[in-house]
């Protein structure tokens, strides 16, 4: 169906065959000048407008009518530069995106339930967000503005690569500003800024099954979810308290969604769990290797498991962010030198930057990093 080769930027270049022509590749030639490799598109604004509609992920779907699908989409791209080989919008072919959207819709209909899906090979190894990337590819449209974070930061290799991937394959605008983004793909954090109804948060999930720790058999964990037998989750918390005197789980802290399914929130710090509760934004979770998608629709109850006498508590930090003086945010420890010097700064880099731009100053904000 597709030919993949790698261009000079290291990103694979996908040549989509024309379904009407029996899947013959249109072109295998390497990209020549024009738009590539990354950037240009979207950021300028005018080109984005050109692509409006033409590349809508819903447009090219086959099914109704007899015309060959994607004709319009391909046309728009080819008009732009007739020699440029074409991608499916956002890399995945339309059939795959439809399949993923069906899984997402099912996930939204059954909040917290893990929906199996036919995870595809992506041009990145498992463990680098292949599940999240597929979900993003299935929901993103040409008007969307994408933000990608890894551990709260927009500038880490993984985040930059995924952002570049969608700039290139979907031509969407990207941003580091949480407030400007319409789709945010994340690994290990939820932005500090409260998300809004028009935003979608896509989580990269390594291990979707919260019961895995105590019950390795997939057949059995499915049954436990089906029958709502969740005693095992508390066994794990009991063990924590017995060993450490308190619930020592700080990441991937299990939650109950809408009073029914127990869900792994992915390895976000438990600090972020309360942000999931009744969020206005749609939250989608993709696990590529494990081939599971799940969802938390807007305004859904997300409750962290606990005991009456050991209630759930988020981490608290004894000092504010050293750069922007923010309190009540999740802080990362940064080692400053090899003499034990260190500081605590916002893990959400955008939040920190916005605060500093607004004039907030932390204890160490004058020092060079």
């Amino acid at each position, binding site marked *: 169906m597709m030919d993949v080769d790698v261009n000079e930027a290291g990103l694979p270049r996908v040549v989509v065959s024309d379904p009407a022509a029996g899947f013959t590749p249109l072109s295998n030639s390497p990209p020549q000048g024009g738009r590539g490799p990354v950037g240009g598109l979207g950021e300028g604004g005018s080109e984005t407008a050109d692509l409006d509609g033409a590349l809508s992920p819903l447009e090219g779907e086959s099914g109704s009518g007899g015309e060959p699908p994607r004709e319009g989409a391909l046309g728009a791209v080819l008009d732009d530069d007739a020699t440029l080989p074409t991608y499916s919008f956002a890399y995945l072919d339309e059939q795959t995106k439809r399949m993923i959207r069906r899984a997402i819709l099912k996930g939204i209909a059954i909040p917290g339930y893990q929906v199996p899906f036919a995870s595809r090979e992506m041009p990145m190894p498992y463990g680098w967000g292949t599940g999240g990337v597929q979900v993003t590819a299935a929901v993103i449209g040409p008007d969307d503005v994408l933000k990608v974070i890894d551990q709260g930061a927009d500038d880490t290799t993984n985040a930059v690569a995924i952002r570049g991937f969608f700039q290139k394959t979907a031509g969407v605008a990207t941003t580091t500003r949480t407030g400007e983004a319409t789709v945010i793909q994340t690994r290990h954090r939820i932005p500090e800024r409260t998300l809004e109804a028009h935003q979608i948060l896509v989580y990269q999930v390594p291990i979707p099954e919260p019961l895995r720790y105590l019950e390795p058999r997939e057949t059995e964990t499915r049954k436990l979810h089906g029958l*709502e037998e*969740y005693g095992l989750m508390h*066994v794990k918390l*009991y*063990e924590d308290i*017995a060993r450490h005197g308190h619930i020592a789980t700080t990441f991937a802290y299990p939650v109950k969604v809408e009073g029914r399914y127990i869900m792994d929130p992915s390895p976000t710090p438990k600090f972020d769990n309360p942000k999931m509760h009744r969020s206005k934004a749609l939250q989608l979770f993709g696990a590529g290797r494990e081939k599971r998608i799940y969802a938390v629709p807007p305004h859904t109850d997300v409750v962290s498991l606990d*005991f009456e*006498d050991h209630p759930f508590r988020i981490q608290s930090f004894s000092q504010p962010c050293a750069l922007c003086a923010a309190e009540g945010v999740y802080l990362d420890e940064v080692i400053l030198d090899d003499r034990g010097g260190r500081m605590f700064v916002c893990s959400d880099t955008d939040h920190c930057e916005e605060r500093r731009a607004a004039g907030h100053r932390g204890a160490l904000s004058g020092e060079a990093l």
Partner: protein
Amino acid sequence: MSAVAMLPDAETERPLLKVSRLSHYYGARLGCRDVSLDVYPGEVVAVVGESGSGKTTLLNCLAGRLTPTAGSVEFRMRDGRLRSLFGLTEAERRLLARTDWGFVHQNPAEGLRMTVSAGANVGERLMAIGDRHYGTIRATALDWLARVEIAADRIDDEPRSFSGGMRQRLQIARNLVTRPRLVFMDEPTGGLDVSVQARLLDLLRQLVADLGLAAVVVTHDLAVARLLSDRMLVMKDGTVIEHGLTDRVLDDPREPYTQLLVSSILQV
């Protein structure tokens, strides 16, 4: 006061478990055939017989772990109604299995979670039925460990570090913590050395009496049947060949096969 004493008379007179004409075949091979049996509240029934006679097959059918080829198994629910086990949904059957029933395996590793602490093993059923107070769960676990003679300071140890006898006692505590009304046991003292067996039997006898438990105990050891049970079934080639009060069967066996069993084994 035992649980039985608190029940109105009518309750002890109505069977808790009612088994009619139960057969199970593994394909063409006979497991057990045409077994009928009633178990009353507070009563211990032993199933004895030689290896391969169908004891485990019968027990697994009674406990809903195997679907019989023919016949019925009914259990009296807390509302007093008899319900066919196989007419229950799987969810109902599993709920029953972790509240009203216990199942003690011959091999404790099958009935325990070997990688979580003894306390969590005992507490699991409590948490499964909604107990959400750590302090209460732990206190109950400590109480049950004491009842099965496991030292309090072993509560946070994994059963992997326990002896065979301790593991079996832990398995029993784990099963009894929700005060089940009926306990199934498959060779609970098998695989243990004789002195450990004797101690475990004493403990079981005491617990069964204290809690007014009804139990079905599979064993090929007539001494176990003698010590624990009120009534016994003797099985051979998949069928029940003799059935009666334990003392009567052991002191005055009627069937030649039972006579042979008793004379050859019980004289030790």
